[in-house]
């Protein structure tokens, strides 16, 4: 059972490290109970860093975190591409897909001689889906000498990095984060290559009408991303008129029991449930809805499109579940070789946002090539002018708002345990 080989040593080492750390740092302080109240709020972050670092040191013996430094000039050596993505915390799994997607693009471009005669180098920084940590990570990337940024997953954590990269005149190509808040900043250097919540909601409503739904229940998980889609969908449904919102409710992410929301849905008896959160809770909700005897349709948003949704929900329960999603490797014709390359390079299949992250690096390289420079202004100009560059979602051309001209959302359905294309909505 190789599963727990290092457990004892890791737990022992990390507990010991934390104990020593606490004794050193806090042992000598005398703290009043009032201060203790305020400290409680700050403690977790200190420890998140401490414990993660300790755990990493214990398992790997060396720190990727501790590397870096070195060359800071922008005109020679490899071109530094910053990516602030979640590598710890609850969104860490997606961070891995993104990291690999980016690395694949970097490897391919470097194998062909790089850009402007220089190699590309990824500077991955952990944003942990946390605004404070993401801002610190962005600052670190800037001081490491990044010339372009291709990160951004959680919208809430990406938002504070915008002014940091903007001030340093570093163009940002955001592969995944897609809240309207990012667009509303109207920054000239920020470009989004994932469809936005508004576009996703429009696609969802279009399909609901087309499919003849009379009533729907909208369920979100209280995150900015999820609420954005649910609220836009509700608005679009109201102006469309033929489909009624029978229920609009939220759940708390990270729990296991969603029986109360299931109970509310059973009471509202909608034709369709539209879940706009992520796959972990989505899988559980589908499972618990089916166990409660729900017969109607279930549709999920792009955050839930992941093979794990099916395994968590149970294959029989997930069969027929619909999804609004931008193109994925599985639904793109001719992506088989890409999937094979990815799987060969990383020993695991690509997941959500692997393609967008891959494309973000390619778009960045293309813009620098067009600009014949890594200068922020020139690259931003080249990005604005880009027209017809092929990425997974189709030929790329940015709108004046720097979003995709076509969100590219289509409807997928689970068939035989896999998400397959059902309706292109054209």
């Amino acid at each position, binding site marked *: 059972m190789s599963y727990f080989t290092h457990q004892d040593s890791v*737990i022992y080492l990390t507990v010991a490290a934390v104990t020593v750390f606490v004794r050193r740092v806090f042992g000598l302080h005398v703290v009043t109970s009032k201060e203790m109240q305020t400290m409680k709020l700050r403690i977790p972050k200190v420890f998140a860093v401490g414990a993660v670092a300790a755990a990493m040191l214990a398992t790997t013996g060396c720190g990727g975190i501790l590397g870096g430094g070195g060359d800071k000039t922008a005109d020679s050596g490899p071109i530094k591409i910053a990516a602030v993505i979640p590598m710890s915390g609850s969104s860490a799994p997606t961070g891995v897909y993104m990291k690999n997607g980016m690395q694949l693009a970097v490897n391919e471009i470097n194998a062909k001689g790089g850009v402007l005669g220089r190699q590309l180098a990824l500077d991955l920084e952990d944003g942990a889906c946390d605004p404070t940590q993401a801002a610190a990570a962005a600052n670190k990337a800037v001081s490491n000498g990044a010339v372009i940024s291709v990160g951004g997953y959680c919208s809430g954590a990406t938002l504070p990095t915008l002014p940091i990269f903007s001030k340093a005149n570093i163009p940002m190509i955001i592969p995944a984060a897609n809240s309207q808040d990012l667009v509303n900043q109207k920054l000239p250097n920020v470009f989004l290559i994932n469809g936005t919540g508004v576009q996703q909601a429009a696609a969802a409503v279009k399909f609901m009408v087309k499919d003849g739904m009379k009533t729907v229940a909208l369920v979100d998980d209280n995150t900015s991303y999820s609420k954005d889609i649910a609220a836009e969908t509700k608005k679009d449904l109201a102006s469309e008129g033929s489909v009624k919102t029978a229920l609009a409710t939220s759940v708390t992410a990270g729990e*296991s029991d969603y029986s*109360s929301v299931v109970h*509310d849905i059973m009471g509202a008896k909608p034709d369709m449930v539209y879940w706009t959160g992520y796959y972990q809770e989505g899988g559980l909700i589908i499972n618990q809805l089916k166990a409660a005897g729900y017969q109607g349709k279930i549709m999920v948003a792009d955050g839930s499109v992941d093979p794990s949704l099916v395994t968590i929900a149970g294959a029989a329960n997930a069969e027929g579940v619909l999804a609004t999603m931008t193109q994925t490797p599985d639904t793109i014709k001719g992506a088989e070789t890409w999937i094979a390359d990815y799987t060969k390079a990383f020993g695991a299949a690509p997941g959500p946002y692997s393609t967008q992250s891959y494309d973000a690096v390619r778009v960045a390289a293309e813009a620098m090539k067009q600009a014949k420079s890594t200068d922020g202004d020139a690259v931003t100009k080249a990005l604005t002018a880009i027209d017809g560059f092929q990425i997974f979602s189709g030929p790329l051309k940015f709108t004046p708002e720097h979003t995709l001209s076509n969100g590219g959302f289509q409807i997928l359905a689970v068939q035989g345990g896999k998400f397959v294309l059902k309706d292109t909505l054209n």
Partner: protein
Amino acid sequence: MTQLIWNGLFVGSFYALIALGYSMVYGIIKLLNFAHGDIYMVGAFIGFAVLSSVGVIPASMSITALLIVLLLTMIITGGIGVGIEYLAYRPLRNSPRLAVLITAVGASFTLEYGVSAIAGPNPKVFPVRLEGESFDFLGARISAPQIVLMVIAVVLMLSLNSYIQRTSMGRAMRAIALDPKGALLMGVNVNKIITWTFFIGSALAGAAGVMAGAYYGKIDFLMGFIIGLKAFTAAVIGGIGNIKGAMLGGLLLGLLEAFGSQWLGGQWRDVFTFGVLIAFLTLKPTGLLGERVTERV
């Protein structure tokens, strides 16, 4: 209505199992063991590892297999709880309370990211999933696995209660809770009892972890965080330090959530639940069954 009550009681029994550990430890050494929710998570992962290594288990055997895994996991998580106490809490027993509180938070993160580093950050799907017939009972839809889990939870809680009330070890625990110095002077081996308390509390949390994994099907390394907070809340509602209070608090919290969600909508559920908690504690700071502690001089 009956459905709501059943849903509330079912979730509440999970809260209660975890709340017991919080309450027992607090009762004895006045420590808020924030790592306790993560013991629940570790329990789920141990159950996962054991079941995965065994291979395919026929559906007819799943309950027997689950019971065996449950026992095994309880022993291992109990041991981990004891280990954490020995390494992270015992050296600080006479330090300021804040220091121990912080090691507890540290132990919590250590467990979370330790498991994440070993098992990977992706959610795992339990190899055995309890599935069975559902039937109607007074208008509530109840499934066979729910009944099995409820029975296990109730048996665990009842046996703990009689253990605390009837055995000499239980009496020693109560004695330390009342007055640690006095108990020491009367010849109670305080360290041994504290170790044993951690073992029992962690074993119960580990059992809850395996049960949650088998019933809900999904486990991940952060699954202990929210339920840990909820169980802590349940322990406070019931009167922290009081064993029966923890059980009652867990069930009550489950019911509050079920009804809050029904009356005000899902987005207001936690607002309602914790609003009630604040109001309740303002009126009765010691919780349902807690006793007012007078400072002994």
